[in-house]
């Protein structure tokens, strides 16, 4: 029997496979397909202080080995989450992590304070990397001073596990990772989507209503792997890797490159049972390689 358990800061995960924010709703939406308690964790849909309608349709474009989205953080706001969603999902027997978004530092702080009160939310993922909102979001994540400022402010009001989700749309992601580590982040997760676009040649119009959107899927996996490896070598805090993970081999590659855990995102759109297949696949791999603990995989890249 292999041990799949990992730790991020002080938080135990039964296995290193989480579902990524914005790809599994609040977990309930995929409960028909899988037993959610099998997951290492669920990062729920990006939440903001106030209700957001998100961007106009069309919000999606299929691209080679991937897709663009421009949802723009459509969500009903934190009050709705606390009143209507939290009671339904708090006892799912997996780590429920809320993805936190804001337009201003004050928004991030006010939202975090609300989430800090919830016993069954052991961690937040601070999203400073959403490419699909006009203000805030990625703007915080693309420079060290602004990333530091938002993490510093949130750290003051949040006592539990603080994960910061990083943008790949930067010159040097390791610098941003070091900056947020310096302000007390307990972990970094990466990568968010890459800023990208699609054009309809017949109409000469952009496919997305917002012109640009975020690219995800296997197309971005090599970039994500490279960034995870760079960040792993730059910081001491655990790294959560994501970007185009479609199967157990992909997940294992991220762990070898330095990820302590992985998030599965876009793959859920194709097959919501994939996270469970990945968990089983990691176990099988470990047995084949005679590993007792999944921790032996983390950062085991032989250069």
């Amino acid at each position, binding site marked *: 029997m292999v041990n799949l358990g990992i730790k991020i800061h002080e938080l135990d995960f039964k296995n290193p496979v989480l579902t990524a924010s*914005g*790809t*599994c*709703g609040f977990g309930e*939406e*995929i409960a*028909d*397909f899988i037993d959610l308690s099998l997951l290492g964790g669920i990062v729920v849909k990006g939440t903001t202080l106030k209700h957001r*309608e*998100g961007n*106009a*349709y*069309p*919000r*999606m474009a*299929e*691209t*080679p*080995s*991937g*897709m663009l*989205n421009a*949802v723009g953080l*459509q969500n009903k706001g934190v009050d709705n989450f606390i009143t209507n969603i939290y009671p339904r999902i708090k006892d799912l027997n997996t780590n429920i992590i809320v993805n936190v978004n804001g337009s201003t530092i004050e928004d991030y702080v006010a939202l975090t304070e609300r989430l800090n009160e919830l016993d069954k939310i052991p961690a937040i993922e601070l999203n400073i990397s959403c490419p699909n909102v006009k203000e805030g979001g990625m703007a915080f994540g693309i420079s060290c001073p602004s990333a530091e400022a938002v993490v510093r402010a949130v750290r003051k009001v949040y006592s539990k596990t603080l994960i910061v989700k990083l943008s790949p749309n930067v010159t040097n992601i390791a610098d941003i990772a070091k900056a947020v580590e310096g302000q007390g982040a307990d972990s970094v997760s990466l990568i968010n989507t890459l800023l990208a676009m699609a054009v309809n040649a017949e109409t000469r119009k952009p496919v997305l209503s917002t012109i640009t959107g975020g690219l995800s*899927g*296997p197309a971005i996996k090599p970039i994500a792997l490279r960034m995870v490896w760079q960040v792993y070598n730059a910081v001491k805090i655990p790294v959560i890797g994501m970007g185009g993970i479609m199967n157990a081999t992909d997940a294992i590659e991220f762990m070898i490159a330095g990820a302590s855990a992985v998030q599965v995102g*876009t793959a*859920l*759109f*194709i*097959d*919501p*049972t994939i996270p469970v297949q990945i968990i089983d696949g990691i176990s099988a791999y470990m047995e084949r390689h005679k590993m007792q603990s999944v921790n032996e995989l983390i950062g085991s890249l032989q250069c």
Partner: protein
Amino acid sequence: MKKTVTDFLLLENKQLNKDNFRLVLQSPQPVSDLFPGQFINVEIKEASEIFLRRPFSILDVNYNQHTISLLVKILGRGSKKLTETIAGQTINAIFPLGKSFTLPDKSDRILLIGGGSGVAPMLFLAKICGLDPANVTVLIGARSVSDHIDVSAYQQFGQFFFATEDGSLGEKGYVTNHSVFSGELNQFSKIYTCGPDLMMKAIGRKAIEKNIFCEVSLENMMACGFGVCLCCVEDTKTGHKCVCTDGPVFNVNDLKW
């Protein structure tokens, strides 16, 4: 019925005309509770350039034999690839997805209007609505008789009328100009439609004007089909709604039409 990711056996792939195919899929489990307007999201195998599944509405269900029929029109690479699947191969699909049309009451007189591949859920609805065929009017539009699919197996369930743009079958012109609409539209208590947006909008406006119950089936582009990607939203009177889970069937009064 719980949503599942299922490997179906393709029993039949029949070319109906140049661009339209009927695929009959057999499920390993019973396909109860599957109604007109609902859809399944099909994986396109061995096509590296196609990343996402393709949604198709249900043309027919045989509850005893656990089979689902789809009408697949070649619109792009995904649908083309799917029509190249041969009987005996497996087709992976997520189902059942979406909300169905509201089934009519015994006292209803209904008008069903299908355009293009939108005929699929209309034929299914005509078949299972349980009304006297005298109270079911089906109007089908196509560009030309060569784009039209054979509906003779369904003609026992209602009175059928046709419109083609070139006049090669039924009345000449758009389906929305058919004489059904110049008659007393209020003889119908419910109108259902599926087809191109412009067609559905024109019909929806007529229904709103005459204050007749009307449901339409939208097909906004989607990635997942089960409400997590939030890509297929329709801007309704009550905000953005997912076509995949809040629809695809909407009452016209809820839309900004």
